[in-house]
C-alpha cells in the first residue's frame, strides 16, 4: 500500500520533470528562431571576410572592427544618420502635437457615431499602400521642387505618425476617471486648462511610448525614403541597400551598418513593449 503510494508519487514527479524539460526545450527553440537573425547580424559585423561565411558558422573568432571603420569612413554616413534622426523626430513631434488633442476628443466622444467615423477615417490612411500617395506626390514634388528634399520625406512621415497616435492614444484617455475631469471643471478650470494641466500629465508615459513607437516606425521606413530622397537626403535604411552592388553584397560593412541602425530601435522597443501592448490591442476600430 505504502510502496504503491510512493511509486505513484514518483511517477507524478517524473511526469512533471519531463513536462518541465519539454517546456524549456520548446521555449529555447522559439527563442532561437526569433533571435538568431539578430545574433548573426551583430556577430558577423565583428568578423573578417573569411570568418563571416565559414560553414558551420564560427562561434569563436577574433573580433575585428574593420567593418565599422569601413562604414564610418563612408563619406555620407554621418549625413545619412542626421537625415534619419531629423526624418524620425520632426514627424513624431508633429504627429504628437496634432494627434494627442484629437485622441482626447475622440476618447471623450467615443459613444457617438461621429467619433467612430473619425476613427475609421484615420484607419483608412493605413489601408492605402504608401505607393498610392507616393505616385501623385512624386509628380507634385517634382513640380514644386520638393523632390529629394528632406521636407518631402518629413511630410509623408507625418502622414504616417498621426494615424498611429490617434490609434494608440484614446484608450489611455478613457482610463482616466471622469470624476477627476469633472472636479476640475467644477473648480472653474476651462476645458482647455483641464486638458493641459490635469489630463496631459496623467498620460505622459503613454505619450512617451507612442512617440517612441512613431520614431521606430519612421526610422525603419524604407519605400518612401527610397523614392523621395536623393544622395544628400537619403536615410540609413536606403544607405544600407547601397552595400548590395553588382559585384555582390558586401556583407561585412552591411552587417555593421545594419547593427548601427537597429540597436537603438531595439532598445526603444524594449522600453515601450509593456506599456503599449494595451494601446495596440485596443485599437480605434473597435470603438
Amino acid at each position: 500500500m505504502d510502496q504503491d503510494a510512493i511509486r505513484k508519487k514518483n511517477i507524478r514527479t517524473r511526469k512533471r520533470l519531463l513536462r518541465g524539460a519539454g517546456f524549456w526545450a520548446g521555449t529555447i527553440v522559439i527563442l532561437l528562431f526569433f533571435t538568431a537573425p539578430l545574433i548573426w547580424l551583430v556577430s558577423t559585423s565583428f568578423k573578417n571576410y573569411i570568418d563571416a561565411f565559414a560553414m558551420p558558422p564560427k562561434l569563436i573568432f577574433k573580433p575585428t572592427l574593420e567593418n565599422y571603420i569601413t562604414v564610418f569612413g563612408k563619406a555620407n554616413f554621418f549625413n545619412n544618420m542626421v537625415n534619419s534622426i531629423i526624418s524620425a523626430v520632426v514627424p513624431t513631434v508633429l504627429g504628437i502635437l496634432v494627434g494627442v488633442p484629437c485622441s482626447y476628443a475622440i476618447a471623450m466622444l467615443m459613444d457617438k457615431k461621429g467619433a467612430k467615423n473619425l476613427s475609421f477615417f484615420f484607419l483608412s490612411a493605413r489601408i492605402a499602400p504608401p505607393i498610392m500617395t507616393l505616385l501623385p506626390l512624386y509628380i507634385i514634388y517634382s513640380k514644386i521642387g520638393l523632390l529629394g528634399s528632406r521636407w518631402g520625406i518629413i511630410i509623408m512621415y507625418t502622414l504616417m505618425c498621426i494615424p498611429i497616435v490617434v490609434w494608440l492614444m484614446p484608450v489611455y484617455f478613457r482610463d482616466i476617471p471622469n470624476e477627476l475631469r469633472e472636479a476640475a471643471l467644477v473648480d472653474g478650470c476651462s476645458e482647455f486648462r483641464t486638458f493641459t494641466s490635469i489630463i496631459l500629465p496623467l498620460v505622459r508615459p503613454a505619450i512617451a511610448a507612442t512617440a517612441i513607437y512613431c520614431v521606430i516606425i519612421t526610422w525603419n521606413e524604407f519605400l518612401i525614403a527610397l523614392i523621395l530622397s536623393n544622395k544628400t537626403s537619403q536615410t540609413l535604411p536606403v544607405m544600407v541597400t547601397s552595400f548590395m552592388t553588382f559585384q555582390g553584397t558586401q556583407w561585412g560593412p552591411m552587417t555593421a551598418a545594419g547593427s548601427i541602425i537597429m540597436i537603438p530601435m531595439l532598445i526603444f522597443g524594449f522600453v515601450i513593449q509593456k506599456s503599449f501592448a494595451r494601446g495596440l490591442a485596443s485599437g480605434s476600430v473597435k470603438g
Partner: protein
Amino acid sequence: MKKKKIYRAFILPAIITMVIIMIIPFLFAIYITFHDVNLLESGGAFFFAGIKNFKTFFTDKRALNSVATSVKFLVGALTLEMFLGVAISVFLDRKFPGKGIIRALVIIPMFMTPVVSGLIWRAFFDPNAGIVSYLFKLITHRQLDMLGTMSGAMWGIIIVDLWQWTPFVILLVMASLDSLPEETIEAAKVEGASEWQMIRHVKIPMVKPTIIMAAMLRALEALKAFDTIYVMTKGGPGSATETMNMYAYTVGFEFYRIGYATTISFIFTIVVSLGLSKLLQRTNAL
C-alpha cells in the same frame, strides 16, 4: 455646447493635416488614373486616356498574376502568423522564471528594420554560404536554392514575414491573456477542466476579440509588404513574388508609367477598403 466646440478645435488640426497630405494626393491620383503619364517618353506630360488604364489592368497578365501573388502571400503569411502567434502565446502563458525577459526577446523582430531583416534572411538563404541552406544540406543532403526557385522564393518571403510579425501577434495575445480575470481561470480549474479544455474553451474564446484585431492589422500590413520583398527577390524569380504593391512600384518607378502604376495601386486600395469595411461590419456584429 462649449464642450463640443473645444473638441472640434482639438480634432480639426489633425483632420486638416490629413486632408492636405492624404486626400489631395488621393484625388490627384484618381485624376492620374484617367491619363497617360510617362516620365521617360514625354517628360511627365498628361494625355487624357479615358478608362484605358483600367482596361489594360484587366488584360495585363502580369498584373493579374500580381493579384494572385498578393493573395497567396496574404493567405500563407496570415494563416501561419496567426496560428504560430496564438500557439506560442498560449504555450508561454504560465508562470516561470524569466518570463518577462523571454517575452521581450521573442518580440525583438518586430522592431528590427525590415530592409535589414530582408538582407539578413537573404544571407541565410544563400545557396552556398547561407545557414538555412547549410542546415538543409546537413539533414537532407540536398542543395537548397530557396530564393532561386519559384515556389521556394514565395516560401522565403512568407518565412521572413512570419518571423518578423508573429511577434506582433504574440505581443497582443499575451497582453490580453495576462489581463484575463484570475477568478474565471480558477473557476474552470475547480470545475476540473483539463489544460487543453482550458485553452480551447476558456482562454481562446476570451481573447478572441484581440485575435481578430491582430489578424485584421496583420492582413492590412501583409498586403502592403514591400521592403523585405524588394531586397530579397525584387519580385523574382520571374514574377513569382511580384505582389500588387511590388508591381505598382516597378511600373511606376522603373518603367516610369505613372498613369498605369497609379491605376494599379488605386484598384488595390479600393478592393482592400471594400474588403475591410465588410469585415468590420461583420466583426462589429459579433
